[in-house]
């Protein structure tokens, strides 16, 4: 039943000879004495969508920030392009979970694009990038937003504009940190369609953090379950049938599998009493025993 849902994986295994490949080796991040996560090893390939899942506080966002270089970490990031020639620093595109900015800021979408892409002082000279920006916005179905003020965009529109920015220049690795949290069904649909399009047409690896396990099952080629480190990783099938995943996410009695779901739901501990499918790790481990 599950098999039909999962897409076939591309670039399976550790063969880095033909596809561009990024190796995250031994990433550890510490904040003072607190260990956010340790010994994270992940391989991602171009054309692959890697989904990172895990409970809140598992270190998922911090992992992306460490890849970006924004958070100091130990471990290395190794990148090799398809021909095995260019190694070293990949171009990284990043769409934050939520862009915290001043909504009253007098900045248009075109201003932001121009400021990100060129030296030409935008306060003095007219932008020479207009058609180019329009093209990149068209890719995310947002061309009509070009003269809109940033603060006047809706959540979904803003995320699409940020995605367009992250795709310019075309990155080797695209990092998406819960890019569609708080976006309505329609916006979600558009966003995932754009991702699908990128996966098929561009030579890039996508790493996506998501709490939407059904979407992950449908779109990801590789799933990484994190909880202060990598708990397990592999194909969606492998990860979702792993008992450690069950432990962390809990399982709904009905499974939900025959309704096209993954069989897992996010059950918050406090919403249900103990022992009655509350989904808390202790109860689940008792049930498994």
């Amino acid at each position, binding site marked *: 039943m599950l098999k039909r849902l999962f897409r076939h994986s591309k670039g399976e295994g550790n063969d880095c000879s033909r596809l561009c490949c990024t190796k995250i080796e031994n990433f550890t991040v510490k904040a003072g004495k607190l260990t956010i996560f340790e010994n994270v090893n992940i391989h991602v390939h171009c054309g692959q969508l890697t989904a990172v899942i895990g409970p809140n506080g598992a270190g998922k966002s911090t992992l992306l*920030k460490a890849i*970006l*270089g*924004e958070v100091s970490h130990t471990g290395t990031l190794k990148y090799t392009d398809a021909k095995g020639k260019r190694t070293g620093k990949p171009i*990284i595109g*990043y769409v*934050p979970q939520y*862009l*915290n*900015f*001043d909504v*009253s*800021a*007098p*900045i*248009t979408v*075109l*201003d*932001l694009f*121009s*400021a*990100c892409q*060129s*030296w*030409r*002082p*935008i*306060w*003095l000279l007219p932008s020479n990038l207009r058609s180019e920006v329009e093209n990149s916005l068209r890719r995310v179905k947002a061309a009509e937003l070009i*003269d*809109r*003020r*940033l603060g*006047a965009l809706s959540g979904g529109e803003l995320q699409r504009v940020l995605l367009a*920015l992250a795709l310019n220049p075309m990155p080797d690795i695209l990092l998406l940190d819960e890019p569609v949290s708080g976006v309505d069904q329609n916006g979600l649909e558009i966003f995932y369609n754009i991702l699908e399009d990128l996966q098929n047409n561009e030579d890039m690896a996508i790493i996506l953090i998501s709490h939407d396990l059904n979407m992950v099952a449908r779109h990801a080629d590789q799933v990484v379950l994190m909880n202060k480190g990598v708990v397990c990783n592999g194909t969606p099938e492998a990860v979702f049938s792993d008992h450690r995943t069950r432990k962390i996410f809990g399982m709904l009695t009905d499974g939900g599998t025959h309704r096209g779901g993954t069989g897992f739901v996010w059950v918050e501990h406090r919403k249900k009493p103990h022992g009655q499918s509350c989904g808390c790790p202790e109860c689940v481990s008792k049930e498994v025993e």
Partner: protein
Amino acid sequence: MEYIYDLLNALPFEWLEYDFMKNAFLAILLITPLFGLLSTMVVSNRMAFFSDSLGHGAFTGLAIGAVVGLFSPMLSLLVFSVIFALLITWIKNKSSASTDTIIGVFSSTGIAVGLMMMSYGGGFNKFSNYLIGDILSITTQELGYLVLVLVLVFIAWGLMFNKLLVLSVNQSFARSRGINVILVEAVFAAMVAVVVAISIQWVGLLIINSLLVLPGAAARNVSNSVKQYHVMSVGSAMLSGISGLVLAYHFNMAAGATIVVISALIFFITMALKPYFLR
């Protein structure tokens, strides 16, 4: 200089008769665009409190220059202000304490050390000028410095504005776009410090910050794009500067304070007009 004076004499304004008014007028024409430009990003980067502390820090700089007497007060003021600004920026990025706490600490230390040194031996009165400022006292040589600073700030603004703008949207977003956040922040802080240090004796510590905040804050109310923001900010700074100077002359008031009051008026007017301008 004579040529410019002649040009100003040709203007049909009675208040431009005196040379000190000519100088003050020229100074206003140079200072206000400077404040208008910087103001946009001081407001966007939420640095209102920061720029305020620079004025306080400048006080220590002055005191060191005057009391130690090794260098000219101007040089000591400039160097100390820049160091003060960079120190705040550095500690702000290093420490996890909130920005306003850190700035508060520096600000009060700056003014306290300055006052302590100046009042040594009971000679504080000769410094009181720096508190209120006197634009009418500006000399032609000092006008030359202003031209130089204006040109430098203009060039720097041309080179680094885009990065600064991205930084003002969101710091970690800027970092992900490959912008050296600390460097850009430090250069901007140093720029504001230089402008504050240069103009504090004509504008005065008590009101210098209003000139760095009000034009940008007013422009923000009525602009949708970066370009409009700049035009409005520089425009409102120059308008309040010139009209403030004229009013101060006619009614015999402190020029700096009059300018600030007019800026504030412009701010409240734009705030009322906000719904008609913002898309």
